[in-house]
């Protein structure tokens, strides 16, 4: 039977990984993701999993080891944050280009300099175009559920791509919440046996991984990779349907909150969405038609579906917990703008940058933004397209 526990986000992810029981994990400690691997290695030491660990000397080697292990022919996972993800950069592209379904928990943390260990989305946003599937999680429950679903999505025969599950550093990774765990057997049954295609360890059928591909075929190869990405949303929805059957919890490409008849809305990722929903409720009580959209599948980004969900609104604010320097707007703003561009009639868009380096996102921030959206909806004019909020001037 499923059980209800009080657990941190990291604990829930570690437990999900225990239940999935991968063949190999290759990992390196980094705050705030360290805790996941500490918990997981205690499962290894106590015989709770069959996993063989590779306790490497850097994140670059962590992902290199994952790539070798996955190509060899088995289920592989790891976890990291921030600088760790940055050091893996080169390998992220090699994992996706080689079509290896590695699953990685990314406990979102700010990037240096200056050094900061707290939660923001600079790491995950920087890695959004590296060919990995990205699932973002509002709370510990979603981090747990996404971790389990990530294996099924990544390993699906139409996909075979690596996937990262993002959760907010400290805010979610280290906070205790009420979380429902599935049975070990239910998870095992859900993720199924994994069989690698063309495993290196198949000595009877020797294969070469990682060829040099010159201009004559490189582009066809890349296009094939792009086409695989287009198949991901359907698989994500199919896997969510199966997951609902065993958990009773519903997942989509994104979550909408009181959005159907809304006139103004926030688009916001991860933990800050929870805070925002409370404020939306209070605005609704005042008779203001406010709503929210929280992306879940961020890569590939479901442009059509998101555009369709937002097109009838009057004003929308995209809140980014990362900036894209020199790109004028935050990374998510650019995606939301692109998803609305095909529509002649579309909402006015503004962009706020919040919560960098773990700066608290308060209900008052959501109120400020919603009041501004109400004003924009009324006047049809936005004063400032992009600004930082919750910051000293």
């Amino acid at each position, binding site marked *: 039977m499923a059980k209800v526990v009080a657990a941190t986000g990291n604990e829930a992810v570690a437990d999900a990984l225990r239940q999935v029981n991968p063949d*190999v994990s290759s990992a390196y400690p980094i705050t705030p993701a360290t805790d996941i691997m500490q918990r997981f290695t205690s499962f290894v030491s106590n015989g709770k999993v069959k996993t063989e660990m590779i306790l490497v000397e850097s994140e670059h080697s962590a992902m290199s080891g994952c790539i*070798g*292990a996955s*190509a060899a022919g088995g289920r592989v996972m790891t976890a990291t944050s921030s600088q760790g993800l940055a050091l893996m950069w080169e390998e992220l592209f090699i994992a996706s280009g080689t079509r290896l379904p590695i699953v990685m928990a990314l406990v979102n943390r700010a990037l240096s300099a200056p050094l900061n260990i707290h939660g923001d989305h600079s790491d995950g946003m920087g890695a959004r175009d590296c060919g990995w599937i990205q699932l973002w999680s509002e709370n510990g429950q979603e981090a747990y559920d996404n971790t389990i679903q990530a294996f099924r999505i990544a390993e699906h025969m139409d996909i075979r791509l690596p996937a990262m599950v993002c959760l907010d550093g400290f805010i979610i990774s280290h906070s205790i919440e009420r979380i429902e765990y599935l049975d070990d057997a239910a998870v095992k049954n859900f993720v199924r046996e994994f069989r690698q295609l063309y495993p*290196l*360890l198949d000595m009877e059928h*020797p294969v070469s991984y990682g060829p040099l591909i010159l201009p004559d075929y490189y582009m066809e190869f890349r296009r094939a990779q792009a086409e695989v990405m287009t198949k991901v949303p359907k698989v994500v929805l199919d896997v969510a349907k199966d997951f609902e059957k065993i958990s009773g919890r519903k997942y989509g490409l994104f979550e909408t909150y009181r959005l159907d008849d809304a006139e103004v809305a926030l688009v916001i990722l991860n933990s800050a969405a929870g805070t925002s929903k409370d404020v939306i409720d209070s605005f609704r009580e005042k008779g203001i038609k406010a709503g929210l959209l929280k992306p879940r599948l961020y890569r590939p980004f479901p442009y059509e579906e998101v555009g369709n969900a937002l097109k009838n609104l009057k004003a929308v604010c995209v809140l980014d917990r990362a900036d894209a320097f020199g790109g004028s707007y935050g990374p998510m703003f650019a995606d939301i703008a692109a998803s609305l561009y095909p529509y002649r009639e579309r909402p006015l868009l503004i962009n706020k940058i919040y919560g960098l380096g773990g700066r608290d996102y308060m209900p008052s921030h959501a109120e400020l933004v919603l009041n501004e959206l109400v004003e924009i909806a009324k006047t049809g004019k936005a004063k400032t397209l992009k600004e930082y909020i919750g910051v000293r001037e």
Partner: protein
Amino acid sequence: MATGLTLKELSKKEMLLTAGHRMCAGCGAPIVVKMVLLASEYPLIAANATGCLEVSTCISEYTAWKIPWIHNAFENAAATISGVETMYRSLKKQGKIDKEIKFIAFGGDGGTYDIGLQSLSGAMERGHDMLYVCYDNGAYMNTGIQRSSATPFGADTTTCPAGDVIQGKPQQRKDMTRIMAAHGIPYVAQASPSHWMDLMKKVRKALDIKGPKFMNIISPCNRGWRSRTDDAIMLSKLAVETCYWPLYEIENGVTKVTFKPKEKKPLKDFIKPQGRFKHLFSPENEGMLKTFQEMIDREWEALLKASGAE
């Protein structure tokens, strides 16, 4: 049944790196790789660091490798093969695989001495059952002969060119074999394709030992050394006979010189046929030649001392 290490017996074995690869004519690397693969009595899986060997042996959609092979990136052949080897152990423990398989990583000196040193050191310390083979040609030959920490003293490369002020590489080369030995791993060896029997015996011994092993094999590069295309074996022989590249092994901490030249030839014999050292023979660089010879003498004596021979 073990195959004898005789030419007659070896000639019956299948070549696991096929002809038709795109390595330069006269390159030492494919000779080294063929010898290593031929010496093995076990099924092998190889990882390959980015470099000459890698780009020339697997250009889509062809591969010269008859064994399972993986190229990941430049600096991580050791970490990559450690992932393969760990998956093997996991699946073996689970009863999903029962075959005895051995794991080899190939890297050039750039991928071994420099950018791959951390990954290699980590894999050795973790104790994976693997053999790492460095084919050392003494520079970044694949990108066009730039200096590496394996480049010998005084050598002219495209990033330490011999000029009016600087006469080639000012520094002594890194002693990678000893760095690997310092990891306390069960087997470390230095070999040369000129002494093929010695090389293959070492490979065989290494593969029979459980745990991490390292072999450093000199691999002449006629493009970078600016030597004749048919001189690879002659030059690797001279490297051994001048004691520039001594043949030795360190097994469980015990150093053994496996070939001691009857008469140690002067270093000049090895470097004279190579264009990369041409400037050292001009009268004003006489001092550099002397310094270079002294470096080699010092290293050779230290090796003899370590082996208990002196």
